[in-house]
């Protein structure tokens, strides 16, 4: 077991190395660099650029060096916590991202909890009452939820919130708390804002999860062991919770791998529409302006989370599913 975890963890190293090469390569793909696009942007606005400063920055960040050297600097810096310098914000990447990162994590965590709390009971109901009116109704709502794009829902909600309640539902907190240190007032402001993006972002996720939980449960509900448990005299609800639901949980755990990166990058478009102070819009902006360290660190961070997420779900599965833990080879 320990051996498996160690091997599994060590296997992350080559994976991350390959990802870093790939990320660096992709970022370098477009012609030119940040400074070129910055200068041309200034020129198009009719302003003159301070070429001396730009040349100095170029030299300082090694843009005159060959790619391999720059790659080594970039990766080497990340290894001891230096994620580079955002040219656009003129700040180290870690400071630019800082506040936004934990707001994103907060928003995503709440969204996931929301999704699970809503999806579980509905999924269980749909599976146990298959082809009933309740199932059809919930399926219809769920499909609507999957079909309506999040940003669309955001726009619609913004419109009606304005028309009916006269409130603006954008942002994650009131204006005056931006860039303020954390306080009770700021926290409550966030809490009063957060439910709107949670509902908007969570809708499609909830709907998708209901459908998957329903499908997984339906597979399990007709298995022989369910009948066996009922034949022992166990209450039907206890049967459901102890056996099929437990079995259907596996896919939630395997999901962790994709949930973690989705937390950071997810819902960019919605975030832009609602002007949320999360990392999504920033990543898009960084990619547009070729702010390479910011974008690169972001992508690396996402990759890291994916790899960690898969690791966590793999290890969790080995703990939770004895077939993976003890099963040697195949079993009939």
């Amino acid at each position: 077991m320990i051996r498996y975890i160690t091997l599994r963890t060590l296997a992350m190293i080559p994976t991350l190395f390959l990802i870093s090469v790939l990320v660096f390569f992709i970022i370098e793909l477009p012609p030119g660099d940040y400074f070129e696009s910055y200068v041309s942007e200034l020129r198009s606005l009719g302003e003159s650029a301070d070429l001396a400063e730009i040349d100095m920055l170029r030299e300082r960040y090694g843009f005159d060096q060959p790619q391999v050297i720059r790659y080594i600097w970039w990766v080497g810096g990340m290894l001891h916590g230096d994620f580079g310098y955002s040219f656009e914000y003129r700040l180290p990447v870690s400071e630019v991202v800082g506040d936004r990162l934990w707001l994103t994590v907060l928003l995503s965590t709440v969204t996931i909890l929301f999704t699970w709390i809503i999806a579980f009971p509905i999924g269980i109901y749909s599976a146990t009452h298959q082809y009933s009116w309740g199932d059809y109704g919930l399926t219809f709502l769920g499909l609507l939820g999957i079909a309506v794009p999040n940003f669309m829902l955001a726009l619609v909600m913004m419109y009606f919130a304005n028309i009916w309640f006269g409130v603006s539902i954008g942002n994650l907190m009131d204006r005056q708390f931006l860039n303020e240190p954390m306080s009770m007032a700021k926290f409550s402001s966030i809490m009063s804002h957060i439910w709107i993006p949670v509902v908007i972002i969570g809708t499609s996720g909830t709907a998708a999860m209901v459908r998957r939980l329903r499908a997984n449960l339906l597979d399990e509900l007709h298995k022989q062991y369910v009948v066996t448990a009922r034949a022992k005299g166990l209450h039907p609800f206890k049967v459901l919770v102890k056996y099929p639901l437990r079995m259907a949980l596996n896919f939630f755990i395997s999901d962790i791998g994709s949930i973690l990166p989705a937390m950071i990058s997810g819902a960019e478009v919605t975030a832009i529409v609602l002007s949320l102070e999360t990392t999504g819009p920033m990543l898009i902006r960084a990619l547009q302006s070729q702010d390479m360290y910011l974008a690169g660190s972001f992508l690396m961070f996402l990759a890291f989370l994916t790899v960690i997420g898969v690791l966590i779900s793999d290890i969790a599965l080995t703990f939770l599913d004895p077939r993976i833990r003890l099963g040697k080879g195949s079993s009939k």
Partner: protein
Amino acid sequence: MIHATGRNGSDRMTRQELGIGMDLLRVEDVKVSFPLATGQVDALKGVGLRVLPGKITALVGESGSGKSVLGQTIMGLQPDFARVSGRVLLTDPAAPGGKVELLGLPRDGRLIRSVRGRKIGMIFQEPMTSFSALHTIGNQISEALRIHEPISAKEQRERSEDMLSLVGFTKPGKVFDMYPFELSGGMRQRAMIAMALICSPQLLIADEPTTALDVTIQAQILTLLRDLQQRLNMAILLITHDLGVVANVTDEVVVLYQGRIMESGPVDDIFRRPQHPYLKGLMAAIPHFGMKQGERLRPLRDIQINRDKLMTAIGGAKPAPKTSAPEILLSVRNLSKTYQTRDQAWDIRTSAKPAPAVDDVSFDIKRGECLGLVGESGCGKTTVSKILMRAVTPDAGSVIYDDGSGPVDVLAAKGEDLQRLRTQIQMVFQDPVSSLSPRMTVGNILSEPLDIHRRGTPLQRRETVDALLGAIGLGQSARHRYPHSFSGGQRQRVGIARALALAPGLIVCDEPVSALDVSVQAQILNLLKDLQKDLGLTYLFISHNLAVVDYMADRVAVMWAGRIVEIAARETIMTAPVHPYTKALLAAVPYPDLDRRLNFATFEGNTALTSTNWAPAFRAEPDAVADLAPLDLGSGHFVLARKSADRNDLKP
């Protein structure tokens, strides 16, 4: 193990006081129907039967006869949408009037739940899927105790371990904490029995309890059930399709056909004086030992096949066998294969060597013969077939195929040769459901091999498909239908037709009838026999059912633990076996014949089949380098034994 009976002693006293004539369970005019979009299916059309206390009552019928539905209905486990009427009376001294009517109880309510597991236990066919893989055996066994009897966790464990040792586990404490998939099929079925009996029910409903098991394990489980039934003085309602099992263990028999009871009575009457044509037909459809050469099984419903068309479609495409063609079609030499388990794949040090799946297997298949390959699950017979199909690569050994156009090394064939070989060796699979794509019509399934190997024009392919359908007794209309609209036997016929499409030289039949009903089994076996005769086919017929192999094969090879322990002509194996394993295998077959009952004493304990009980001549010497080798006993009879073995030990 006294207290399983002791605890419920008072119950049993009362039952005995009630007298022997009292039924434990009485089913009266039970009707079950399932409303479907297209109408309704009547699964049971007014069924009545009784189960006497302390007796084994068999409920016999083919799939679709409604026997499992009846078992479920008694427990109130039938699907929600089923419409049920009639009465099921269970004798319960504690109830007013001494009887409880089960069908009238609220569905899944407290009353019926107090009957389930406590008064009536149930075991099922599939020991693997009947357990949840995520919970330990102990957890699942003691669950019924937790539900029905308020006792401490320690007592639960004690009772469960007692029950586990009662069903034959030598280390119940260890098994308690194991997971179901860590046990073999037979062991799982034992655990399943322990689970059903933990609350000492008065009635055990056993739904095909041995169907998924090997014949030797089946004999052990039947022995165990009989033993427990006598020891605990419990009644068993044994649901089965196997008349051999019925003849060996039951006291009373009820024959069910299409939701109606055809015949019922004591086992003697049923077997010696069957009245109903259905029962007579069923008896004639079972392959049994000692059938005369050329004697045919009589299926309940014969299928009409169109031979002439088939001969032109397939026989014509095949070049006439050259007179110079060698006698031996396929020659297998020293085949070995060891599967690596996942742990070992991770492990750099290969410390413990796993047991090989196939170990030094050699045999020949002669042109036009049917070689039977017999053995229990896990003995490596399917691995051999997969190697022949090039689906698994062996670690060592050679396979030479020669249909007259020069020998081909099956394991090394590449490109053109391999493509040609693929047309020459075909396979018929065990499971007719999963071996046909549900998304292709039968016509597509049959023409796919022709398309792949670009045989003829599209029109000719259509004609071949028509001829194939005729050959298996399905009409032209079958071409446009999907596999799900056919019955299991019809699907298996489609599988056979698919294997025939390319006019192969060798067909590997991997348990082709073990998923089918008795009457359908006879159809398929006759079809295979006819096709072999007409087309001069060669079969490798893999099966665990010795009676079926006896009916089909010309020669028989017996496999055990990856090795062929005995190979000889069919009559020799069946009448004068030498190897102890072959003998044990033959002794374990339940005959549908009251005068040839199983010798249950042989199967008490689990040791009868392990090699430690064999005569030393058949056991590998612990430190010998020179292993066992096939010894020639003359006329093609080989048996695996020590080279130094005394010839006297090798007498049948």
